[in-house]
């Protein structure tokens, strides 16, 4: 595989300012709105990254309260995901489920968020009890909402209760006004709703970039896989774009609370609104990194040209791209949806980036797509992405290699408010069930869910948005579909469980982990379920081969989930950490950690907050929150070893055709890894040998990782570990753990 060279002459000539507009619906929306609560507040800017207060809104009782941020909150939970988990812990009981009024959605940007000088500093962290997993989910999302919330005066927003009618919560950080408005009628889907609300609340055209909207769409209300769109106004395209808090169904919680949208109007952004203690260090570190992107991105990942889709062909070349529900790792038609296509299809003549100062600019956009199906058929739209996960999940994993259909799937997932990763994995599961006769046309209500049938795929999604038939069943997610199919007697339960790619109730994201022990653990030994936020180890394991031994992999499963947690405490994006690296990185000790960038983060945190830390302190900050979250899971009835079990498809070949498609590799492993002889053995016998070897190896990995994390072999943090982290200061936390020791 050769390095792709960008050829500007091949970029498609598409007018990125043209698309269907919906502003003619503005007056009708306005007419259906009625103010039910209005509360003044004193806007304030952060000091050393913190505003030192959070906002609580009960959308049912309409209680609006400010809460102070305590020193203990800052010391132990830092911000972002930490603040979200802290507030959620205090809000719920062990019996609380996602659709109980006391469940919360907490949005917190973190102390560093809103910095404009370094790439990837505009993130919001969203935390709630997940409808899919019944434990806390946290999602790291771009867009402008979090930074503008903080620049209005709040380090976090807690949303609790349930409204009787749809409401919009508007925070005006310029005028100092919090307003709850009931809304009757009007659009639900994000690409229409957010465009209208941005124009409704902005005070003139120049104010449009200072407004951000959080919304979801029609499918969130009829499924458990709803996500939240966080908007940002694209000045050059002159349109509202989105980044997604995708995983775990927070959009479903949002609609269950009858929240139609959150809107913030913040002050005009400038480079010093966080009032950091050491702006000079921030400026120098940011400029150094911008130069690094300029010099190295073209020869490394080409994030500025392709976004994360740059790894489609790499994953395919290394047999790691999920194809047909994670059965295979490559496909001959992948070239139709790899980055050589996307860098021609995505608009390259403009600025991308979901917060100011993001020189990595991975938020690519495909303009000028005319929709072929659904309620917006015939409309011309801008599609954000596709990111790698979408190309792989909606594309190869379902056998869809038509890029226009892939973009349409991506668009509808976004505007309907469902997670592309989850939808991709659950659709791949549906298609394999269809292939194997577990499902058929009668059971799907007429949908021919064959590999690559994008029209049926889209129709299933439209039914999900309408809450109809099989679309509603699919919207339950893989775990509940498995239970339902087994209950209906529709297939071999073991096969269904083996091929349903979920753990803890959350669908796998789009990497083939069969040959990557590190990624097997990276997916299953997680707090919130299988995703690549906590432990994206597949690249360093399988491509860069930086963690070759069992011990290296176990250590990586200690270090990286903690290191990566830290991004979510502060409002950072993870991509700038290792998607571009210094030119001499490979010569550095522990190159896989990208030591120069780790130091950048240490410096940026210290320079913002004035709290001097080093790289060990960084891990300690994360470890407190990570272990708190583990205990939170246990408190909610999960979080033990049995909940970290992995579906066998993620560990090894489930079916005969999977084995035989890679027979040479698997036979060789019998010799080299098991010390046995495959000669004369049937495929079934060899599959059984693999299953034993692979599940034993995974179990040993669990033992090693748990021990390294300071947990019992049942996955429970020990009292000694809690004391080491200072979490013994919280008697409730200790009480949860004591019941399991």
């Amino acid at each position, binding site marked *: 595989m050769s390095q792709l060279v960008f050829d500007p002459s091949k970029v498609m000539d598409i007018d990125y300012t043209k698309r269907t507009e919906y502003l003619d619906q503005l007056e009708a929306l306005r007419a259906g709105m009625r103010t039910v609560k209005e509360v003044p507040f004193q806007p304030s800017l952060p000091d050393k990254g913190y505003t030192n207060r959070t906002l609580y809104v009960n959308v049912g009782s309409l209680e609006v309260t400010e809460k102070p941020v305590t020193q203990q909150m800052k010391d132990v939970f830092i911000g972002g995901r930490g603040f979200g988990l802290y507030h959620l812990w205090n809000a719920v009981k062990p019996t609380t489920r996602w659709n109980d009024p006391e469940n919360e959605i907490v949005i917190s940007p973190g102390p560093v968020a809103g910095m404009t000088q370094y790439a990837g500093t505009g993130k919001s962290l969203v935390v709630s009890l997940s409808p899919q997993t019944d434990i806390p989910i946290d999602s790291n999302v771009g867009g402008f909402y979090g930074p503008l919330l903080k620049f209005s005066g709040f380090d976090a927003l807690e949303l609790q209760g349930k409204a009787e009618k749809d409401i919009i919560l508007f925070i005006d950080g310029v005028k100092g006004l919090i307003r709850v408005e009931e809304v009757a009628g009007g659009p639900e889907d994000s690409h229409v709703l957010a465009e209208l609300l941005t124009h409704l609340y902005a005070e003139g055209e120049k104010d449009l970039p200072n407004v951000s909207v959080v919304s979801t769409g029609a499918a969130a209300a009829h499924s458990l896989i709803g996500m939240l769109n966080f908007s940002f106004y694209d000045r050059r395209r002159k349109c509202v774009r989105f980044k997604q808090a995708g995983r775990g169904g927070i959009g479903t919680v949002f609609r269950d609370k009858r929240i139609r949208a959150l809107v913030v109007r913040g002050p005009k952004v400038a*480079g010093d609104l966080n009032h950091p203690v050491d702006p000079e260090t921030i*400026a120098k570190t*940011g400029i*150094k990194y*911008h130069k690094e992107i*300029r010099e190295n991105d073209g020869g490394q990942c080409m994030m*500025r040209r392709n976004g994360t889709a740059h790894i489609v062909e790499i994953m395919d070349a290394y047999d790691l791209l999920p194809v047909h529900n994670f059965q295979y790792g490559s496909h001959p038609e992948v070239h139709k949806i790899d980055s050589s296509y996307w860098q021609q299809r995505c608009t*390259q003549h403009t600025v991308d980036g979901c917060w*100011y100062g993001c*020189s990595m600019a991975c938020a690519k956009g495909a303009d000028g797509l005319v929709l072929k199906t659904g309620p917006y058929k015939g409309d011309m739209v801008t599609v954000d992405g596709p990111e790698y996960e979408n190309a792989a999940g909606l594309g190869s994993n379902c056998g869809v290699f038509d890029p226009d259909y892939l973009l349409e799937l991506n668009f509808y997932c976004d505007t309907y408010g469902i997670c592309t990763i989850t939808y991709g994995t659950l659709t791949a599961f549906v298609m394999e069930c269809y292939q194997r006769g577990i499902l058929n046309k009668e059971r799907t209500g007429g949908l021919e869910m064959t590999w690559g049938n994008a029209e049926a795929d889209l129709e299933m999604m439209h039914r999900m948005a309408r809450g109809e038939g099989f679309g509603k069943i699919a919207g339950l997610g893989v775990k509940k579909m498995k239970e339902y199919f087994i209950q209906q007697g529709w297939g071999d339960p073991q096969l269904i469980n083996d091929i349903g790619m979920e753990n803890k109730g959350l669908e796998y994201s789009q990497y083939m982990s069969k040959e990557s022990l590190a990624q097997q653990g990276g997916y299953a030994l997680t707090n919130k379920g299988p995703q690549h936020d906590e432990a994206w180890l597949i690249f360093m394991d399988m491509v860069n081969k930086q963690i070759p031994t069992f011990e290296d992999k176990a250590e990586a499963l200690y270090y990286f989930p903690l290191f990566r947690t830290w991004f979510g405490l502060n409002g950072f994006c993870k991509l700038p950490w290792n998607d571009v690296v210094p030119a001499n990185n490979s010569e550095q000790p522990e190159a896989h950690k990208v030591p120069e960038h780790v130091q950048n983060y240490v410096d940026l945190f210290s320079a913002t907050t004035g709290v001097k830390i080093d790289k060990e302190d960084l891990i300690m900050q994360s470890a407190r929150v990570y272990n708190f979250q583990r205990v939170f899971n246990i408190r909610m009835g999960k979080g033990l070893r049995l909940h970290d079990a992995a579906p066998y498809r993620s560990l090894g070949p489930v079916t005969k055709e999977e084995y035989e498609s890679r027979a040479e590799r698997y036979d060789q492993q019998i010799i080299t890894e098991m010390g046995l002889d495959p000669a004369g053995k049937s495929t079934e016998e060899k599959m059984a040998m693999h299953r034993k070897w692979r599940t034993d190896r995974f179990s040993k990995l669990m033992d090693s990782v748990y021990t390294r994390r300071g947990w019992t072999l049942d996955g429970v943090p020990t009292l000694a570990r809690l004391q080491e982290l200072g979490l013994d200061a919280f008697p409730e936390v200790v009480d949860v753990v004591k019941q399991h020791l």
Partner: protein
Amino acid sequence: MKQLVIDFQKCDAGRNCNHECEMECAVKVFKVDDPAQAALQIKAYEDGGGKAVLCDQCGDCIVVCPSEALKRNKLGVVMIDKQLCVGCYMCIGFCEKDAFMRNPDWIVPHKCTSCGVCVKVCPHGALSIQDVPEPAVRII
């Protein structure tokens, strides 16, 4: 477009002058008594040569600016709108000539705007404002 041009046949890289160009720029344009803050910087090399760090108005910074704070004026000169600038410094990081500069006391960065105040004070007559074609917009 108007571009500040330096002729190194005439400029001796500050060996026999007092960097009048830098001082005039700092004082007249940026109101600071510090030539290090000037929008052009004359550097002498040990081998007897030299170079000038200054903006040639190529416009790469316009392409990367996320807040549309950089635009060409009617003379083709790239100007920064301080009201729109968000202080991200991508213009500094992406300038291949290192011509976008930053004063630690200011949030908004600065650069040469081909104003020509330096031209008049150069004792060697090495500086001039010339009219050159605007380069094509690049994908950065």
